[in-house]
């Protein structure tokens, strides 16, 4: 890669940083309207839904990986296990599935 590559990285770094930094610095100490605050409070849970579905089904070409993974993760999480256990448990289940049926 030539010098253009470093200019590109610089550009990518700047345009990635802007949407991360502007709200956190600009909104510091500002009180937003109640409705906007309520909508913003809803964002984390909505974003989780959109991040999980439908992408989880397409982690591998074999769609069963995603389906079994999603079901296992929800099942483990519903027992009240903490996040790291959900992650490791789901990986363990999929590893077994991969070894036996993969």
């Amino acid at each position: 890669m030539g010098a253009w590559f470093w200019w590109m990285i610089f550009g990518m770094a700047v345009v990635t940083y802007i949407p991360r930094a502007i709200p956190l610095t600009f909104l510091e100490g500002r009180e937003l309207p109640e409705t906007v605050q309520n909508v913003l409070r809803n964002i984390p849970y909505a974003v989780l839904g959109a991040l999980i579905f439908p992408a989880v089904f397409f982690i591998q070409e074999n769609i069963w990986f995603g389906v079994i993974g999603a079901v296992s993760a929800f099942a483990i999480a519903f027992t009240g296990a903490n996040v790291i256990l959900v992650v490791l448990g789901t990986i363990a289940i999929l590893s077994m599935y991969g070894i036996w049926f993969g």
Partner: protein
Amino acid sequence: MIITLHSFSRFGKEKYLRQKERKKLREHGFSSGLKAGASIAIGYFPVALTFGLLAKTTGLSLIEATAMSIFVFAGAAQYISLSLITAGVLPALIVINTFIVNIRHFLMTAALNEKMEPDARWKKALYAFGITDETFTVLATQPDNKIRTSFAAGVIVISYGSWVAFTSLGHLIGASLPAFLQASMSIALYAMFVGLLVPSMKGNRKVLSLALIAALFNSLFFLTGWLSTGWAIMVSTLASAIIIELISRKGVAA
């Protein structure tokens, strides 16, 4: 004597409370942040390893691949840039595409700002660099009312460390994990999202509806191909958050 005893016990109580307060602050500080971010570090491991490997096959040197992870720190955008480089797309267009893919972080950091403790702008500008989909979801779903800057720093340091270190490692060893492990570990970040969502979702129809509606919108965008992934996530999230706010304001149980 009584006065002395009284003041002593009061002093003791205050000291005890102060210690308890300090302990509580410590509990939600940097090291708890590291702990909370551990799942991200595990989830980034296969993704960064594969990125390093792909960067190598794309023709990036070890320094170039690692530099991209150090300065950009955005998984999806970095992957896309590799395929665009291979396709011979103009660097300026790759930069514009990166912006489009990452524009959703406007929404996330605006939401996160409501939850972070007020702090100096330079500190917020510093940790803003570390806000990804994953660090955002871990921070924003913490049960505490306000999150400390040091907690956020902990979450970010362990995630960023994993991302950068495993990018280099992937490039260095030039191979991915054994096939079964690569396949099973690709679930890690999704399992983490599930693990963050479920505790808040149990017995809370509002949280369930928020996730469900956003998931449905995003699936619709995916199936119809109306929006690319970055936009689809942002529009689905915003639509769901607004719809649920409108419904719950009308007093209908959401």
